């Protein structure tokens, strides 16, 4: 692997390994502080499970810049404990049963318990039984006696994919939960590395909760409480593979993506596009019509409205334990975040809006 990628790759893997199934983000908070805290001035959490990492520019009355990366991940919860150590699940977020069968999982009860999701072998399936089971029907095999398991694993305990990461050729990484912790790690890396005098304002990196499960996401409450002048939402985007519609996807290795959408601010979007061009940052424009499918859609409408730009990191196999990203895209994203939080022209243009009538 190319040396320049190495530290960023390690940070992405370290953060993506933290268990943060929606609703259980707070369990990883100590680890987040250990991994990211050093590069920021203040770390705080709120009632909804959002975590805010502040870096101050040191000037009074400076603009407030929000960078949002959701921190929760898809997963499952324990729904019922059956005999012989089998556990029934409920999916959290958009999970496909085709991905779940035979997956390695960890059940986070009073201790971490390894398990494998059950898959019916083809020998035992008749030809007309090729229907996939619903997620709700799937079982985890833990090998524990029922009584022992009941003591270790309260109903509602989170279940996540086992964190296993691999390098592929051409600077690509495969593993779980790059959605969206790769983006969180990249944004943290970028903001940490900027000297504070260079910042165009006070920057808050919001690791937001509940993106995978709630229409609004925890980001709406988080953006309300930190009252930014403008915001950049960063989330993974669907990367092209053969046989999927090209029109809704972006090329892996083609740089970051910038959404053009009714749910984002067109002027801020154009300004960020211009910034990419000026800095030679590889990017793809993508049309996202009336919704970006990310936190941008809700953050834009918080309070009196927040100018918001939506940025994507191309990713294959979304919502599986083998999501694939390209480190050259990660580098491009890192460069953009650095440039964005330092850009005084954007800061002048999008802060200090006229007071709204109350």
């Amino acid at each position, binding site marked *: 692997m190319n040396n320049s990628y190495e530290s960023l790759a390690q940070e992405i893997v370290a953060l993506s390994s933290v268990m943060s199934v*929606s609703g259980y983000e707070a369990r990883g908070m100590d680890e987040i502080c250990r991994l990211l805290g050093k590069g920021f001035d203040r770390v705080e959490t709120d009632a909804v499970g959002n975590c805010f990492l502040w870096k101050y520019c040191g000037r009074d009355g400076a603009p407030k810049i929000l960078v949002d990366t959701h921190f929760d991940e898809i997963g499952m919860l324990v729904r019922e404990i059956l005999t012989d150590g089998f556990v029934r699940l409920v999916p959290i977020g958009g999970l496909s049963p085709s991905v779940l069968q035979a997956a390695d999982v960890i059940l986070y009860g009073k201790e971490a318990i390894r398990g494998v999701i059950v898959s019916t072998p083809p020998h035992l399936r008749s030809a007309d039984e090729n229907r996939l089971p619903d997620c709700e029907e799937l079982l985890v095999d833990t090998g524990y006696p029922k009584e022992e398991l009941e003591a270790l694993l309260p109903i*509602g305990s989170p279940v996540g994919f086992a964190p296993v990461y691999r390098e592929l050729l051409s600077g690509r990484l495969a593993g779980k939960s790059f959605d969206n912790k790769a983006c969180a790690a990249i944004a943290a890396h970028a903001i940490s590395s900027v000297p504070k005098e260079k910042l165009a304002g006070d920057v808050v990196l919001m690791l937001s909760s509940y993106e995978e499960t709630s229409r609004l996401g925890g980001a709406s*409450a988080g953006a309300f409480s930190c009252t930014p002048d403008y915001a950049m939402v960063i989330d993974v985007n669907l990367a092209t593979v053969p046989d999927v519609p090209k029109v809704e996807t972006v090329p892996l290795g083609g740089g970051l993506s910038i959404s053009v959408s009714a749910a984002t601010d067109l002027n801020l979007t154009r300004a960020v596009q211009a910034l990419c061009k000026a800095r030679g940052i590889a990017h793809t424009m993508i049309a996202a019509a009336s919704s970006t499918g990310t936190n941008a859609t809700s953050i834009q409408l918080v309070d009196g409205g927040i100018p918001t730009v939506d940025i994507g990191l191309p990713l294959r196999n979304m919502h599986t334990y083998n999501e694939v990203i390209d480190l050259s895209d990660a580098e491009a994203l890192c460069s953009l975040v650095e440039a964005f939080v330092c850009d005084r022209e954007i800061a002048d243009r999008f802060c200090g809006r006229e007071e709204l009538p109350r």
Partner: protein
Amino acid sequence: MTNLYTTLQKLCACPSVSGREERIREMLREMIAPFCDEVSVDNLGNLIAKKKGAKADGTKIMLCAHMDEIGFLVTFIEKNGLLRVAPIGGIKSVSAAFTEVISERGVAGVLVPNTKTKPEDLSTDKLYIDLGVKDQKSAERKVSVGDFFVLRGGVRRLAGRRICGRPIDDRIGCAVLLSVAERLSRTSLDGDVYYVFSAQEEVGGRGALPAAFAIRPDVSLCVDVTGTGDTPGADAMACSLGEGVAVKIKDSSLICHEEVVFELCRLAEENKIPYQREILLHGGTDASQMQLAGSGSRAGALSIPCRYIHSAVELCELGDAEACVALAEQFVLSIK
């Protein structure tokens, strides 16, 4: 102390469909007023009762139960006097067919499906209300397009401590809040306690959102009914009638705050209150609105297990509701 069942009987006798909550609101206002310092109604029609805390910076808690119920809206009056209807809230046509209904003006009728409709084809556009009138003109003397109907309310006792009727969803939650308010009325607490009887829950939690935005609670607790896994054909769900109050972990609208869940379970164990841990696969509550309004709150929910929700024969056990009162009271007392 007021008897929970007596309170519930009174509340269930009052029809109040989403968006038309005046009558139940006035009834609740009178009942909650003696236990609180201030009672107000907001623009959306939420009833908000406040018990002032001793300290200005005490932790603010919002308890919420919805006072509206599902129903039907008259959309068209046929020549023969039969009324066509649209649903208000999550009506299951199979559960609602062949049920007595009553309008907000007190006009009685029966809700029936078009003749020979197969149960699997049943939907609201195949239901009509028969008022027993001869023709359109006589119907128009009693109702207008835009009138609301509800399934006729009322509860009665079955075996043991089980009761049945409607709208137990969520008058039983309202009864629980009244009971908690009564029990806490003479106790001095650090923070403000708000008892909110929300409007328009059945049409998407619309009332709780502005109420929570105005109150800005630190902690919020929703009290509503939940489904059970103890009837033939039900989804597998570790929740049964008579096993105690259900501490919500997740429903389709939210995942509750982990510490709130932990605290509720701890308090139940410490005080020997029967409880179960609830994951509801289908259905949401006001808790999701309280969680994300404004800067958000630490949101949790207590549920009363209930069979046959949204039918005329909702069925639950009084002991579970009593456990809910006890646990909600302990929770409020535990807030520092």
